[in-house]
């Protein structure tokens, strides 16, 4: 080999990369100047009384909260600059496995902002909220129809809260049978929220290993199934992107002992319009409207996690329920004797429900199967394009996502999954989900979604090919990636060892350091 004694890594690394916009911008508090205002609140000429007129001295704030003082221009500039440091779906491909980062249609946003939606008070008289109630009722029915369930609640604020709600319903059901039971079976491929939701209901998690094919086997479930098991929690397709082929047999094993089958609906996008979870043995399931039904992720919420169930669990659904009267009008019913109660105030993340309903109307009955069809086609096409570039731990035709590992790459070049992920940032892509599911070492979990074109998938495959090539030729470029982003890799250990969780006066300026 010729001696490569090179110039610096960064110089080589930044050829043909994507340059990220980068204005420096300090913490908003550092831009504050006493006396500056961004909003006029008080009408000119109106004098404001002293709060001592109404409140005892002890209840009155002694020093104002340390909020920044900015002009509107300075505030807006701060937020726009910060926004420029984010990568988002509208920038480019975002194949984050299990998160379903599909395009978020703009008409959904317009609908949620209509006056009658955004400015409707939750305690408005029902007669003046018929549009909202009809929308929610229709959405419940449509989701029930898509999933093969009898009823839905739209109340949970996120998928994890939906899981929690479903487990509360499971507990209520068993309690009504005389024994709430003590255990929940959870496959080793499950999301971390599953065991945490079980624990919040007083259930102990029992892990079940998936079989060699990466799916759960009814025989394995039977070995640990007994009358203390309240439920099994199954994600289908699972986090390896594989359909749980034995789901009906698993359900039979669980049902025979009086247990219930919880479905984690995170991956409904692969099934919509083709498989109804309620028809293959699932008793209760949460959905993530921010995945399958295209509502935006918002940098981590708000989501929405409706829960659907089979008939025998409907008495336990949270209140209020939406009821349609004989005359076609709608009302809210708080009086359901078996209900678990409520998991949040009011009725749910209504703004997200408006977006999801708008999406369903745009896609329509005959478009449902297209969503799952094209998401599975895209995943399989991308996997085919990648050929043997990366090691794939499980065979079997994947559905909407597939999992690769760094096994081969690491052995040949020393380059690991994290390096690949960070280099993808340089090339203008959001990385896949990494190091999950936990059962796969060095996992790269790739979910393209149905809203991407084949050209995008081909370009992404090209980027991964380039990375593998670089790994062989010049691994340093990868170990030190990213090079083109505003910041390099961040020190997580330092953050956890010496937590700085808020700005305090006298802090060094952020972002202007170099």
């Amino acid at each position, binding site marked *: 080999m010729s001696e490569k004694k090179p110039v610096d890594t960064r110089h080589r690394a930044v050829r043909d990369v994507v340059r990220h916009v980068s204005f420096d911008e300090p913490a908003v508090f550092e831009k504050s100047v006493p006396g500056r205002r961004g909003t006029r609140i008080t009408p000119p000429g109106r004098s404001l009384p002293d709060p001592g007129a109404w*409140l005892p001295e002890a209840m009155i704030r002694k020093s104002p909260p340390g909020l920044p003082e900015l002009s509107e221009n300075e505030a807006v500039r701060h937020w726009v600059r910060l926004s420029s440091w984010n990568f988002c779906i509208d920038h480019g491909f975002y194949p984050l496995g299990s998160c379903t980062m599909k395009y978020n249609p703009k008409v959904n946003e317009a609908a949620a902002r209509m006056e009658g939606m955004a400015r409707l008070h939750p305690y408005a008289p029902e007669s003046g909220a018929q549009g909202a109630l009809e929308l929610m009722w229709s959405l419940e029915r449509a989701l029930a129809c898509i999933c093969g369930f009898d009823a839905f609640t739209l109340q949970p604020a996120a998928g994890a809260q939906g899981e929690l709600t479903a487990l509360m319903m499971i507990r209520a059901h068993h309690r009504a049978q005389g024994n709430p039971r003590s255990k929940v079976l959870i496959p080793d491929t499950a999301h971390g929220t599953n*065991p945490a939701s079980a624990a919040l209901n007083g259930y102990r998690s029992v892990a079940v290993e998936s079989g060699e094919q990466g799916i759960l086997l009814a025989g394995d479930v039977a070995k640990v199934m007994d009358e203390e098991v309240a439920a099994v929690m199954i994600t289908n397709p699972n986090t390896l992107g594989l359909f749980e082929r034995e789901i009906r047999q698993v359900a039979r094993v669980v049902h025979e002992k009086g247990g219930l089958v919880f479905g984690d609906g995170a991956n409904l996008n692969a099934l919509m319009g083709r498989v109804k979870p309620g028809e293959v043995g699932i008793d209760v399931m949460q959905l993530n409207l921010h995945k399958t039904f295209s509502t935006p992720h918002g940098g981590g919420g708000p989501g929405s996690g409706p829960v659907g169930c089979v008939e025998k669990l409907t008495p336990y659904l949270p209140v209020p329920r939406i009821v349609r009267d004989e005359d076609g009008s709608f009302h809210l019913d708080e009086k359901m004797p078996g209900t678990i109660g409520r998991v949040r105030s009011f009725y749910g*993340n209504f703004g997200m429900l408006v977006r999801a309903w708008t999406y369903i109307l745009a896609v329509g009955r005959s478009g449902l199967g297209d969503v799952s069809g094209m998401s599975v086609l895209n995943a399989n096409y991308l996997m085919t394009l990648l050929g043997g570039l990366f090691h794939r731990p499980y065979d079997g035709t994947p559905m909407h996502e597939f999992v690769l590992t760094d096994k081969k790459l690491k052995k040949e070049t020393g380059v690991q999954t994290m390096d690949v992920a960070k280099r993808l940032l340089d090339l203008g892509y959001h990385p896949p989900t990494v190091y999950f599911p936990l059962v796969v070492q060095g996992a790269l979990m790739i979910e393209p979604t149905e809203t991407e074109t084949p050209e995008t998938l081909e370009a992404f495959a090209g980027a991964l090919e380039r990375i593998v090539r670089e790994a062989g030729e010049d691994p340093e470029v990868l170990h030190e990636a990213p090079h083109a982003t505003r910041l390099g890799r961040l020190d997580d250990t330092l953050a956890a060892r010496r937590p700085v969780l808020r700005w305090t006066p006298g802090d060094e300026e952020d972002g202007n350091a170099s």
Partner: protein
Amino acid sequence: MYTPHTDEDIRRMLERIGVGSVDELFARAVPGEMLTSGGFEDVPEAMDLASLIKTMRALSDRNTASCIGSCFAGGGAYAHLVHPAVDQIISRSEFLTAYTPYQAEVSQGTLQAVFEFQTMVAELLGTQVANASMYDGASAAAEAALMARRVTKRNKVLVSEALHPEYRHVIRTYLAGLAPEGVEEVLTIGYAKDTGATDTVALAGRLGDDVAAVVVGYPNVFGVVEDLTSIAKAAHDAGALLVTATAEPVSLGILEAPAVLGADIPTAEGQALGLPVSFGGPGVGLFGCSKKKARHMPGRLVGRTVDTRGKNGYVLTLAMREQHIRRERATSNICTNQGLCALAVTVHLSLLGPEGLREQALMSAANAHALRERIAALDGFEDVFDGPFFNEFAIRSKRVPVADLIEGLAERRLLAGPALGRWYPELANVLLVSTTECLCTQDMDALVAALREVGR
């Protein structure tokens, strides 16, 4: 509708994969007997864009009670001023269509915004730290009760009857699965019928070494400002923590920060700080505590650190508390925060500043105090409570049933409420009235005139 594939695309892709059709591809992945035979009659047929907009507009228009007129409704959702810049900023794709900031190098916008949010929330609540937000005020209060149980290793939670009933209901629901069969771990402490504040005598009588937390509203559901100092003292003397729930966060512009008065885990609903009422959601839960208790705290946290080049930056941190690492031993099952809503609050507060928030609070309170006096002077109405209040008060209709009152107001494009009888049988004919800085003299004249006409 949103799939870009042309017939030619599909043909080319299938050929490359080596399969004849999409259905055939599905058949490889899913056993045939699992496929549904159809039946999607409750899903409407697809709409063209114009019809779609028309349909949504028609639904929106049927919400005739939306606050296009004047809004005097409260009870945990408030129509305060929202600066138009807030919606412009949170509508930016960079914030709207990003995921949870796992890849810190390309998520610094979201991460720094959350860091600033945590700082502002800590300032409002008077705590050392605050998390990246919870789902809403009610679930934040429930998570605080759970946290108090972890910190104190005790089980009972005493909840004030004057705490918003839906918040109480959520706390009961959250804790139900953890109690032994037949044991009630959430107990209610009544309120004083004259002041509308928590009955501190009853509270003192029930406190003991089995109590993890006392939970009160601040202000409470009647709009009354609780005497946190004495409640905190009683709780602390018994070794319990004080959890406060502020459903109307604008109050914190003039009210003393709850932690300063002794709240150990102050929580709040942030909707009034930059979000529309939106039929009750999405909102955003605010949650703070001391540094010492931070490792017991639920929810996401953002911390400051440095990158490989020594530049300051932000990351998600202290994940050891969280479900994806600790699984069943996590502090909560919460997976994300209310990202975009937390951003809205942060943008809004950056535009208001401390003085803007104070003026908003003062105007809201001044409007409420002037209005209560005028309504109580009307024939057919009387005050219900005499405790100090912020921008919300209870008023009893002596002659006309409250449902008729609400209907009469609605006919005049006015909205007040909720009616407290829905939760409190002893307050059967009592209406909650709430004010914001958005209401002017004419709005209040209109409400008084309407009540005069309808209420006698």
